[in-house]
């Protein structure tokens, strides 16, 4: 049981929550996630930790509505309780100790790159953050990302703000302009992460992605989250969530992520109709 101490709506479909979870805040490291269950009938879903404050015992998460559980989660308010809030799970991301790094965040993934940006800034790595969204109203946490990055670039698919086009276009432009990234980390929708992988592969830049497959327990017990990485079977919840983007079998991961597309759509429609 974890109490929500602060809620901030970032866009019409995205909210930021600060949750009281002192044990998790104490041990959380950049790139880890929590498993959340909203009510007794609920499913367990993974959500990336955006930030944690050890002294206040708070964990920050950003939730974008994609299905019923995220819909229910977003309808919670300050003072409400989250039934199950477990973490920090997964292996912390391995970040470079110096040089230049690009962080690419798409959609809710922008929340996830924030803790990485802070960590890199603390290490003295030069950070370029590229954040993308369909349109300007959906860009989140711009101020926070700017505060922890040396350079911040916005991209919108419709050109309503910043670079007109995908985050990969911006990334390529930066490399052409002479940025020599030691590492790229991309977090967001799977299609975006695949596009980033294909952009950096010919450039030979080490790239990590945060895989977000369907999970049940999030502790390594079920194998629902399995992926093929470099021809090997991996469980995203315990071996990941970060993997070498050039080794991930994205085609397979994309197919697997749609296993319950029908059920998810039906459940969301019912939940929205019920006003829940």
């Amino acid at each position: 049981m974890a109490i929500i101490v602060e809620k901030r709506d970032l866009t019409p479909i995205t909210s930021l929550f600060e949750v009281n979870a002192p044990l998790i805040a104490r041990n959380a490291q950049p790139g880890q996630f929590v498993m959340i269950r909203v009510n007794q009938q609920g499913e367990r879903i993974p959500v990336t930790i955006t930030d944690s404050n050890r002294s206040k015992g708070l964990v920050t998460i950003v939730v974008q509505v994609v299905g019923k559980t995220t819909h229910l989660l977003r309808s919670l308010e300050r003072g409400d309780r989250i039934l199950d809030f477990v973490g920090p799970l997964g292996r912390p991301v391995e970040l470079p100790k110096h040089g230049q790094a690009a962080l690419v965040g798409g959609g809710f993934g922008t929340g996830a790159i924030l803790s990485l940006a802070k960590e890199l800034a603390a290490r003295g790595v030069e950070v370029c953050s590229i954040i993308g969204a369909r349109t300007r109203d959906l860009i989140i946490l711009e101020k926070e990302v700017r505060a922890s990055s040396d350079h911040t670039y916005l991209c919108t698919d419709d050109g309503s703000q910043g670079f007109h086009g995908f985050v990969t276009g911006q990334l390529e432009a930066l490399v052409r302009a002479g940025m020599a990234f030691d590492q790229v980390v991309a977090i967001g929708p799977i299609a975006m992460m695949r596009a980033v992988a294909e952009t950096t592969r010919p450039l030979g830049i080490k790239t990590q992605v945060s895989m977000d497959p369907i999970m049940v327990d999030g502790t390594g017990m079920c194998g629902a989250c399995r992926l093929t990485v470099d021809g090997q079977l991996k469980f995203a919840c315990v071996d990941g969530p970060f993997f070498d983007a050039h080794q991930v079998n994205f085609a397979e991961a994309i197919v697997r992520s749609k296993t319950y597309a029908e059920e998810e759509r039906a459940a969301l429609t019912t939940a929205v109709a019920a006003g829940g």
Partner: protein
Amino acid sequence: MPMVQLKKTPLPALDPIQRRLGFQEVSLGYSPTQALAEAQRCLLCQEPNCEAGCPVGVPIRDFIKLIAEGKPLEAVRAIKQVNSLPAICGRVCPQEHQCELKCVIKGKQEPVAIGALERFVADYELAHQGAQTSVNGYHRNLVNSLPGKPTAKVAVVGSGPASLTAAGDLARTGYHVTLFEALHVPGGVLMYGIPEFRLPKSIVAAEINKLREQGVEIQCNTVIGRTITIDQLMHEMGFGAVFIGSGAGSPKFMGIPGENLKGVYSANEFLTRINLMKANRFPEFDTPVKKGQRVVVVGAGDTAMDVVRTAIRVGAREAYIVYRRTEKEMTARIEDYHHAAEEGALFQWLTNPVRLVGSDDGWVRGMECIRMELGSPDESGRRRPLPVAGSEFLMEVDTVVMALGTNPNPTVSQSTQDLVSDRYGHIKADPATGATSKPGVFAGGDVVTGSATVILAAGAGKRSAQAIHQYLNERRKAPTAGAPAVGC
């Protein structure tokens, strides 16, 4: 002299047609009259072979004698000296490979139904809870009032049979026990793995409630190694000792092509979705599961039987077990195998999958198999299955479940320095005490042995509880310099 009853007193079971309609317990248990009749079949041997067949040495002859004398509560007390979980073990132990295998009357007659009798007395006790406390004498207050009582804190990791047993014994000895479970429900495999129709969850819940009454604090949603590390437990939170019973939860796959198609599950995933998350009741519950029409389960252990029977209950028209050896080598309990067959499960013995074939949109649609024959015995003493060249054939399927066994979950060992495990991730522990390479840290159950049985896990928990008590006692008497003091 009563007439000798050659066969076991039949154990009543739910009608097979009715079973398909839900998850009600199949095996119904003895009535007092039936239990008495069965107890009277026991010869009360001077040197009971059956007890040598029990991995933890339950005093079988004595408890059966007590049943025959009409003292079921005393019988259960005798069992609990050695095994804290008789209601569970009576239901799930592979008795035909253990105690009942060694019963002297076996051969000419059927062995005494020891498992069913164990279950009978345990259920009798549960139904007469009030009486239980007075006869058991498990009075925490009593222990606590003793001078020089141990008040140290002990942490127990996981909540399967190993941990439940260790926690109970330590609490009754007077320790402050906190049990940390990663999932949102305590009970381990007993809750998320073994289905309701074989082990009603109310039985597991009763054991857990008993622990709470004995003062055990249960903290779910806590992954040791992540939420709290073992070192934090010991050096920051004041736990004098830790017992690790984190099980062997990590499922194995075959490594054949097509295993990541949609509709392919591990047994753990399939069972967890249904037992723990109630996916069979989607959309009332939010977790979905594909309810296959043609389901194939690979493997023939207890887990495989549980999956095939679950698949039948959630609507499979055809549900197969595919196993590369024969019925004779399968490891499933015989009672469950019979129940599965009665419920309509189909068996393809001497058959091994070679690849899975998918549709254009990535759903599993076929399983190519090859027939096998048995060669000479392998390391396990069982005859080695060998493929028959050219015998490949295709099975039409829409759901495949891999029930191939499990490895330990790596989280605890990876996050704890100086805790030695083998290359498969089994924590190395002294079989007599559960002591690991790290002082004050003990381990037992599947995390040490690899996937085994409930009774072996429970036995390990019991031995570790004693060893922890001894360890803490010694520390109390002679606290070593520099180490955090154990006690108040």
